[in-house]
């Protein structure tokens, strides 16, 4: 195991982009024989303007460097041409010029260049092989450009890594918040059930039979609530894990919609909310009736929960090989900000301490997951104070087609 780790470390080191060969940056410029006169050199240089510096090389071994800047300075100051023109270039050569091996890194080369006196800092470096023979010139300008590209790449990579790290942190925070929320939702009714059991025990022991009926009624209500929470959490977990099976059969969409309307009416009770079914024609489709019923019942109970007066409208029609179900209400609506996280189990949970006590808030997440499982789509539009409209589109399917597609 240790050996493996060491190898891995070596590989990483080897592949590190921080160490490219310098050879790619080296320019193979022609060299100057030491005996060439200064005049000849300057003429040649006027023709080839791209060279900033040339090496003076004798028998393959560099003697030093001549730079365009310094040569021009010498020639164009008083009597420069007259004084130096006929002299061999060897006499104006900087023999202390830096020589480097192509094996050094770009960073090292730059550090070496900039360790020189300021007036020499941008002089090209002479690149030599291990026998000291001339290979080419390394321009400091090119080196700096290369390194700044590298720097940009490193910065970009860092920015990507930072963004990933933040996303991981965000997901982890959301998961913790989700877990805290689910824990609380499971414990609350459980704790009430435990307390009520104690009360029932005590009432029984003290022959206070008159209290039993009410105790049991509240116990049942808490137990149903607990069951609903458990079911939501399990449904969500199963969907997340892709463990939900689909059983396709021929379904009458109108009868499911009518059934949902009945559920809505029961949930509304005495509130002044009207339930309207608007379905001109029944549409038969091949789908999983249990899942579809679950989606519609989720949508309807949401509509009831957030509507205290007005109307809840259930619509149904067929459109381009799809069945369209619409559940709209005239309730409180959902702000744009809240809508953004509505279909994400983790972000939607929000601050666990101030959420209203109406289950896990997983209803829409589960409904959308189920819709996708049935090959359909669930979408929502809403406006604060004027209501919410949820649209479910499902493929009509066929007995075989649907089975193949869905299973």
């Amino acid at each position, binding site marked *: 195991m240790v050996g493996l780790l060491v190898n891995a470390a070596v590989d990483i080191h080897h592949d590190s982009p921080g160490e490219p060969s310098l050879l790619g940056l080296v320019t193979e410029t022609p060299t100057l024989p030491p005996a060439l006169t200064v005049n000849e050199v300057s003429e040649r240089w006027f023709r080839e303007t791209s060279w900033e510096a040339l090496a003076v090389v004798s028998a393959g071994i560099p003697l030093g460097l001549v730079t365009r800047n310094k040569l021009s300075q010498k020639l164009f100051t008083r009597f420069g041409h007259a004084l130096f023109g006929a002299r061999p270039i060897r006499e104006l050569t900087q023999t202390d010029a830096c020589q480097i091996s192509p094996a050094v890194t770009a960073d090292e080369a730059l550090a070496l260049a900039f360790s020189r006196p300021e007036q020499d800092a941008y002089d090209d470096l002479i690149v030599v092989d291990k026998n000291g023979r001339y290979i080419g010139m390394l321009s400091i300008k090119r080196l700096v450009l290369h390194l700044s590209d590298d720097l940009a790449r490193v910065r970009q990579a860092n920015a990507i890594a930072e963004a990933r790290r933040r996303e991981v942190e965000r997901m982890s925070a959301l998961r913790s918040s989700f877990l*805290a929320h689910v*824990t609380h939702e499971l414990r*609350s009714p459980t704790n009430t059930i435990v307390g*009520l059991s104690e009360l029932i025990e005590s009432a029984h022991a003290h022959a206070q039979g008159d209290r039993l009926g009410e105790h049991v009624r509240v116990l049942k*209500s808490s137990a149903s609530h607990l069951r609903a929470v458990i079911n939501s959490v399990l449904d969500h977990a199963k969907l997340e894990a892709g463990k939900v099976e689909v059983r396709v059969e021929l379904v009458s969409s109108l009868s499911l919609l009518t059934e949902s309307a009945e559920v809505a009416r029961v949930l509304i009770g005495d509130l002044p909310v009207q339930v309207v079914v608007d379905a001109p024609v029944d549409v038969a489709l091949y789908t999983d009736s249990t899942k579809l019923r679950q989606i519609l019942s989720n949508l309807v109970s949401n509509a009831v929960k957030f509507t205290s007066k007005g109307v809840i409208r259930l619509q149904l029609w067929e459109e381009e090989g799809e069945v369209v179900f619409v559940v709209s209400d005239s309730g409180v609506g959902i702000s744009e900000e809240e809508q953004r996280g509505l279909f994400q189990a983790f972000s939607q949970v929000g601050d*666990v*301490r*101030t*959420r209203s006590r109406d289950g896990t808030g997983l209803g829409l997440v589960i409904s959308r997951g189920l819709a996708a499982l049935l090959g359909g789509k669930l979408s929502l539009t809403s406006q604060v104070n004027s209501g919410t409209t949820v649209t479910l589109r499902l493929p009509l399917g066929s007995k075989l087609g649907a089975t193949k597609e869905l299973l």
Partner: protein
Amino acid sequence: MIARGRVLVVDDDENHLYMVRELLTLEGYEVKTYGSPFGATRAVNEFMPDVVLVDINMPGLSGDRLAPLLIKETIARVVLYSSNDEDSLRLAVEQTGAAGYVCKGDPGMLRFMLSVLVGTR
């Protein structure tokens, strides 16, 4: 029978309020319940309980924000009463200055806390 003391319970969960009211009434306390964090201060000042049991997870205003208000505005002893993790309750007690906490679902702890707080008055 003279009540052992007065307890007000602030919680948005009706079932839980019912259960606590029944349980503490059996224990000999005079109990009132209040279903929302809003107006809780007034409810406390009207009923003048010895102890207020405050739920933490409530819509609109959480119990750990309500508790400091109750401590400032009333003379009742404030106890946090929640289904949250015990660690987070302990922390909330430190942060709010509440007299203590009780885990929901632990009637023994509830009895003990009340007997201590009511007994010390």
